[in-house]
Structure formats: structure tokens, C-alpha cells
């Protein structure tokens, strides 16, 4: 049995065992074996040879359906592969599974999937975070070493933090969005989960680089896997005071204190900085992302593909109303309505235009801090560890605030990641590192030093 075939068999066993997590939407041993056979046929072993990788089910693939966790795309199979899928396959990776997600990536707990919620691998009563909860849970459960998710406003970093794995969001424009089903196009980034920083870095280096099929990718050389550093000497790490509120969860605060101390011990200078406009990140995000989503989701109209239902009254309007009314879940409908509202005549200036102005101020805050000699920022990834299922589903704003520390980097287009830095009452806690635009190599190199120095399983107090 070849190495790839052995890995495929093992991945299949683990996927089957992980079934109760409800983390996957599509996978089969046949497809895994076919992937292994394809890898075996490759004339040169790629940098990811025989690595099983799971994909969030909003990344289109020819071999499996792509549902985005929505009834409206139930059974839809893409006639083309996303650019990131092509690159992973060319590098020898095996596509292992498509993972569960909040419908169209809208959510922070993976409870908004039309196909049932994903369970936290350490505590089934809790959520794994979201919207890339399926991918996070699979990596945390040791099913695959790495998985792709997508971020619009923290949908990889937040579940990475909840599940105790590495989650990296690259700079906007670093990775092609071609084949990532659009949610908020100016924010969407294919992002990576890894068991280790190195796994995540290796996958990110393969999928990064400009793409002639995505006009928003930046024409720069692909990211390289960073060289290992001995320590953090010479680096200045900023702690933005707005990200350490007084009511921060005690466990999260303790984990961040420990991380800060470790950063100092490793030779970095630590200084407090301020990002005053980050206070507006969540409301700004919840105007821009729904506005773009309302337009991006207009194509699911029942005319060409996906679910199609006509109401009793018949006609084209009935087709739209019934297909969309029945096909989209509550959260998606809520965001389409919000997005439609903020773009409407008479409201555009007050909401969408204003939000874009605030977005520019948020990005300017980061620029100013990085220009002042700060190399990296350190913040908590989430205000609390993983919360209980059902805890926030009735209160959309409480759910939105789970992303309070991760939205601003998305609005600014910056690379950022969550690194597991400890546990509180058995639940993982993530620290967020943020770097200047296109400085992923610095981000990942520093994270690797911290990863070596910190025990992510240690209880913090």
C-alpha cells in the first residue's frame, strides 16, 4: 500500500469516527481512495504529498457537492474547482471532506447550518465557533492535519480559538477567491486551519499567490514558509488597549497575560498601543458584509441551478419568493434584508457610505500603529472560550459580538491568526497575532516561536 493510500485509509477511519461531531457534509472512502491514486500517479511528489485536507463547503469542487450549508444549494455540484482546490491538488494534497458551516458562512457558532449544528470536539454541549466550525472541529479532533475555511469577519480565527487549533487569515488579495462562494466580497478570504503553525504555513504557502481569475488578488510572489527563529528578539509587540476590556473573561485574560509574559521572556519589546476606531468594527462590519451579501446571494433565484420552488400563485415573482423564502435560513434572510436596507435610496449615505468611511479609519489606526515601530499586535481572539449551544441563537447581536476582536482586521484586510495558548476549565483559549499587510511570514515565524514556548494544553489561572 502506498503512503497516500495508507493516509487515505486512515483519514477515512477518522472521518467515520468523527461522525457524531456533524463536522462533515460530504466525504466518501471512494473519493479518498481516488485522491490517493491520483497522488500516486503524480510524477513528482508535491510539497503537500498525500496530506489529507478538508474544505469548508463553500469552496467549490467538482468531485463533491457544494451546499454552503444551505437548502438552496442542496445537491448542487460545481462544474469547476476553486483555484485553491486546483493548487492543493497540484501540490499533492488529498481532498478529504467538505465540512459543515453556518449557512453561507453567516454565523459564529456553526449552529446556522441547514444540516445541523457542529459539536465542539471537547464538549458536545458547546459550539466549535463559526462559521468554519466543521473545518475547525475536524482539525481539533485530529482527523486531518489541516483544513481550509473562509473568513469574512473572523470565521476561521474565532473557531480556531474555540477549538484550540491554529487559524490563519491571510492578507486580503493574498489568496484567490475564485471558487470561494461569495459572502462579503471585499472581506472574504480563504483561510487555513492547522494542527501546528507549520502545517498551516505550508498549506497557506501553496494556496497563496495571484490568480488571473480573481482581479482582487495582488500580483506578488506567493508566501514562503518562514524560516524558524530562535526567539523574538528585535520585535516590538503592541497590545491595543481597546482589546483588553475590564469585563474580559478571566480565563482569557489570564491566558493573554501568560502569553505576554512569554513574549517578553523571548526577547520582544511589549508596548501598549491604541486602536480607537476598533470600537466601531462590529457595527461597521454588520453594514458592509450584509450589503455585499445581499447582492452576492441574489443569484440564488431558482432560475438556473439549485433549489427551485414555485408557489401556488405561479409566475416569476412567486418563483423568487418561494425559492428564496424557503431555501434560505433565518440568519441569511436577516442579513439580506439588512443589506438591502442599507443600500436603499435615501439610506445609502447614512449607512453604507458612512460604514466605508469608518472602515478607512479603522484601517488607518492599524497603519499608524505599525508605522510607529510596532511589528505585531497581540490580542485575545475571542472574549470568552467556546460557549454553549443555543446560548446565543435567540440574540443575533450577542452572537455578532463573539467576533468583536476579529472583525477589525478583516475590515483592514490585514493578516491575522489565532494561536492556542492555554486552557481555562478545559476549554481552549486563543491569542490573536496581527501583522502589517502582506507580512504573513513575520506573523507565522513569530507564532512558531511562541508555539514552541507555550503549552497549549496547560490550564491558566
Amino acid at each position, binding site marked *: 500500500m502506498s503512503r497516500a493510500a495508507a493516509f487515505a485509509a486512515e483519514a477515512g477511519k477518522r472521518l467515520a469516527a468523527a461522525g457524531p461531531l456533524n463536522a462533515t457534509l460530504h466525504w466518501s472512502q471512494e473519493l479518498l481512495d481516488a485522491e490517493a491514486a491520483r497522488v500516486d500517479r503524480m510524477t513528482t511528489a508535491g510539497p503537500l504529498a498525500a496530506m489529507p485536507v478538508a474544505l469548508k463547503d463553500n*469552496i*467549490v469542487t467538482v468531485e463533491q457537492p457544494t451546499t454552503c450549508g444551505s437548502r438552496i444549494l442542496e445537491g448542487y455540484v460545481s*462544474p469547476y474547482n476553486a483555484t485553491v482546490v486546483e493548487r492543493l491538488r497540484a501540490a499533492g494534497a488529498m481532498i478529504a471532506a467538505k465540512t459543515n458551516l453556518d449557512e453561507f458562512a453567516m454565523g459564529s457558532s456553526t449552529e446556522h447550518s441547514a444540516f445541523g449544528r457542529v459539536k465542539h470536539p471537547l464538549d458536545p454541549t458547546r459550539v466549535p465557533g463559526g462559521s468554519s466550525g466543521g473545518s475547525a472541529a475536524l482539525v481539533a479532533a485530529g482527523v486531518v492535519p489541516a483544513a481550509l475555511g473562509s473568513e469574512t469577519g473572523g470565521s476561521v480565527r474565532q473557531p480556531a480559538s474555540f477549538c484550540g487549533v491554529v487559524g490563519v487569515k491571510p492578507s486580503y488579495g493574498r489568496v484567490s477567491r475564485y*471558487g470561494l462562494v461569495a459572502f*462579503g466580497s471585499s472581506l472574504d478570504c480563504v483561510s487555513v486551519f492547522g494542527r501546528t503553525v507549520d502545517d498551516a504555513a505550508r498549506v497557506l504557502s501553496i494556496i497563496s499567490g495571484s490568480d488571473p481569475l480573481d*482581479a*482582487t488578488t495582488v500580483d506578488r510572489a506567493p508566501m514562503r514558509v518562514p524560516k524558524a527563529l530562535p526567539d523574538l528578539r528585535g520585535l516590538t509587540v503592541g497590545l491595543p488597549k481597546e482589546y483588553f476590556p475590564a469585563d474580559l473573561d478571566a480565563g482569557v485574560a489570564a491566558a493573554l497575560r501568560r502569553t505576554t509574559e512569554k513574549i517578553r521572556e523571548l526577547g520582544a519589546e511589549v508596548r501598549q498601543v491604541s486602536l480607537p476606531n476598533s470600537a466601531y468594527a462590529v457595527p461597521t462590519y454588520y453594514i458592509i458584509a450584509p450589503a455585499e451579501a*445581499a447582492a452576492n446571494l441574489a443569484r440564488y*433565484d431558482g432560475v438556473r441551478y439549485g433549489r427551485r420552488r414555485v408557489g401556488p400563485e405561479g409566475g416569476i415573482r412567486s418563483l423568487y419568493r418561494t425559492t428564496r423564502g424557503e431555501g434560505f435560513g433565518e440568519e441569511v434572510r436577516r442579513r439580506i434584508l439588512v443589506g438591502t436596507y442599507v*443600500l436603499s435610496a435615501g439610506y445609502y449615505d447614512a449607512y453604507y457610505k458612512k460604514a466605508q468611511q469608518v472602515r478607512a479609519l479603522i484601517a488607518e489606526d492599524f497603519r499608524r500603529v505599525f508605522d510607529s515601530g510596532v511589528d505585531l499586535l497581540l490580542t485575545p481572539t475571542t472574549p470568552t472560550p467556546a460557549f454553549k449551544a443555543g446560548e446565543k441563537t435567540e440574540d443575533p447581536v450577542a452572537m455578532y459580538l463573539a467576533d468583536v476582536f476579529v472583525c477589525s482586521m478583516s475590515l483592514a484586510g490585514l493578516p491575522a491568526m489565532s494561536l492556542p495558548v492555554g486552557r481555562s476549565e478545559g476549554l481552549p483559549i486563543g491569542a490573536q497575532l496581527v501583522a502589517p499587510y502582506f507580512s504573513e511570514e513575520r506573523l507565522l515565524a513569530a507564532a512558531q516561536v511562541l508555539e514552541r514556548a507555550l503549552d497549549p494544553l496547560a490550564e491558566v489561572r
Partner: protein
Amino acid sequence: MAWETVIGLEVHVQLRTRTKMFCGDRTTFGDPPNTNVCPVCLGLPGALPVPNAEAIRLAVRGALALGCTVHETSVFARKNYFYPDLPKGYQISQFDRPLATGGSVSFESPERGRMQVGITRLHVEEDAGKLLHDRFPGKTAVDLNRAGTPLAEIVSEPDLRSPAEARAYLTTLRQILVYAGVSECSMEQGSLRVDANLSIRPAGTSKLGTKTEVKNMNSFANVERALEAERARQISLVESGHRVEQVTLLFNAATAQVKPTRSKEESHDYRYFPDPDLPPLVLTPAWIAEQRAAVPELPEAKRARLEAAHALSVTDARVITAEAGLAHYFESVVDAGADPKTAANWVMGEVMTTYNESGSFPVPARRLAELIGLVREGVLSRQAAKRVYSELAQSSEQDPRATAARLGLVQVSDQGALSGWVDEVIAAHPGEVARFRSGEAKLMAFFVGQVMKRSQGKADPKGVQPVLTEKLR
């Protein structure tokens, strides 16, 4: 009361590209439904638009030909509405930051003489698909071949004052765009479409009245007819004490009437916003300058030059420059050595007839120049040359001299042959001979004609007369 009509036009022209605005599918007209489609123009999940550089180049060239300022930065925007022919649920267009603004077109108004129409803006956008209502009984089918076809929308100022003036402006606009190579501008193939805005106001006042929009005209003549109908409708509304409502009307060519569409359904809020999939379109001043230099000679300039260089009459120059292809052909014939005045007559005669019938120039310009040369040398009569031309146009033959010879049309100036035909004519018309000899000199034309007839057009008329004069003496 005397009413003044105020008209502004929105013209959509298809940019003459091989492929679509945001993907690589072909733009061929008339292919089987849904064969020129891909994930991008079908609006499949995950697909993204990438601008077509050639479409941008042509739009910029069009804008420059219309005297517009081309902006170094323009922004693609999404125009949101639901319709089954619109795959993404939005059209990628441009809104508050168009490619170009502030141009003008000089044209000949039938009422007011030469005048200028302001061009408010020119922007690029993608076309929608097509709904087919007659393909399956009781059902509507969608053909997305046209979806994503690159268009330039050209919006005029409300500077036009009559339906005839609107038509004259359209004719000139079309000429310019065809000359500049921007678009085929064929209404039949849908590569030029016109939406017209019309309002009326009491003559001498300056406040604009409520405008209506008229659509569904399939020819320039129908634009004029539709606007006539709408003008009459508005005047009779106002004169009977009603108000004009802001509606969209469809023209019915069969009845020459305009009919309002349901106005409430039409009151769209398009919720424009910048398309996050497309970075702002940035053009460098150097590149824009390059495009400006590449704008070919436009109809007005060409007409003036032809008048001056070839001593053509104003009318002849206008007829020849009306079509870019015709003007180009004329110049090629002259360049190949033909006398300009003779070439002009050919181009306005036989050449234009075949062009109007076939849309092409089957006789290469160099060959027509040779043919004209044969007439000048006296080898062919003008009549015979026309027959050679039509033979060349219809067959694969190329050489006018060989064709003339094959058809037996080469002019005969051989004295023996001419004498023979003259003798036969004199013998056949004793009465006319007697009258001529008694002083009826104008009969000479009759004898020349008879000789030409007897020779089946081959006799060289210049050679015939001396022989006749000699023999009738």
C-alpha cells in the same frame, strides 16, 4: 400654445470584442442558445469577473472620438435587480464614477443646421441575456449567450429639439463609432439600442417638463416615429388639462403607437454600490494619450479632407463618407491610381449598390482602379466596364482586362471593322442619310448610336464619328 420638445438619448452599443466583458466566452451573434457561456457569465457560485482589456480600450477610444474626458480612475458598480435574464441578480455597470464624461457630437440638424449635442457620459457595462417567449409553448426560455457582452452606454444631454433631430444625431453618432472601430452599431443584431427621454415645455421657457422614457425601437426611423408619437401624446395630455407622468413606454412599430408599461413595477431602486470584485479601473495619462493618437480619422475630418484633396463636391464627399467602409474603399481606389472624380462616380453607383446588397466590396479596390484605367485608355466603353464590374463582382475572376476579353467587350477602334459597321448602318437607313446630307446635322448622334448597337457596344465611339463623317459626306 407652441410647444418645444426636449429629447435626450441613451444609446447602448456593443463593443467590438471577440470575447465578453468579464470572461472569455465568444460574443458571436446567432449561435445556438446557451453555447457561449461559462461559470462567470452564468453567475455560478464562486465565479468572479475579470475585466476585458480590449473592451476597455474600445470604450476609451469611443469616448475620445466623442470628445469626452476619459477619467484616470473609474469604478465598476453593481446595479441590483431581479430578472430571469440577469444571472447574478445584478448587472456590472458604472454609476457615480463613469469611464468618461463631458463630450460633444457635431451634427447636421434638419431644422437648425450644424449644431452640437453634449455627451453627458460614456460608461462600460455588461449586457443581460435574452428571454425567448416563442420557443416553447406556454413557457419562457432563457438564452444567456448575450449575458456579459460588453457595452458602452452613451448618454446625451437633453439638447435635441425634435424627433428628426434625434434621428440625425443618431446617424452621426453611429457613423463616428463605426469609423472609430468601436462597434458594428447594427440595430438588427442588437449591437446598438436606443432609449429616448422626451419632455415638452411651452416654447420660450427653460424649465424642463416631466420626461418619459421610450423604448423598443428597432431602427433609427422608428426612433423618429416613436418620438413623434410620444410628443403628440404628451401635447394632447397637457392640452386636455392632464399632467405628464414619469413612465416608461414601449413603441409598437405596427401601430406607430407608444404604450406605457405598468409604472409601479418600473420604479426600481437599483441600490448601486461599488463592485467589490473589481478594483477601481485605473488608466495612466500616457496610455490614454496613446489611445487618443490611435483614434482613426472621423467622418467630419474625412469629408473635409476628401473635398479638399480630390476636389469632390460637398454632396459627393458626404455620400462617400457616410459609411466608413465606403470611404475607405474610395480612398483605396484613388490610391491605386484612379481619377478621383471617376472613382467617386463608381463608388456612388455600382459599388454602393453591391455594398448595400451584400455589405461587402467583392471587387478589390485595385481591380476597380484598373477597370477605370481601361475606360480612360479607350479599351472599354463605360457601358462595357459596368458589365465587366458586375462579372468581377459575381465570379472569382480578378483581372478586368482578361474578363473584358473573355466577354468580348474590348472596344474596337480598328478602321476596317469600324468602316464595315458604318457601311451597314448607312445601307440600312437611306432616309436618315438623305436628311443628314440635306443639313440635319443632329442625326449624327443617331448614326453613332446605330453603329454602337450593331457592334454590340464594342465600337470605340471616338473612332466611329470620324468614319461616319467621312462616309456621309
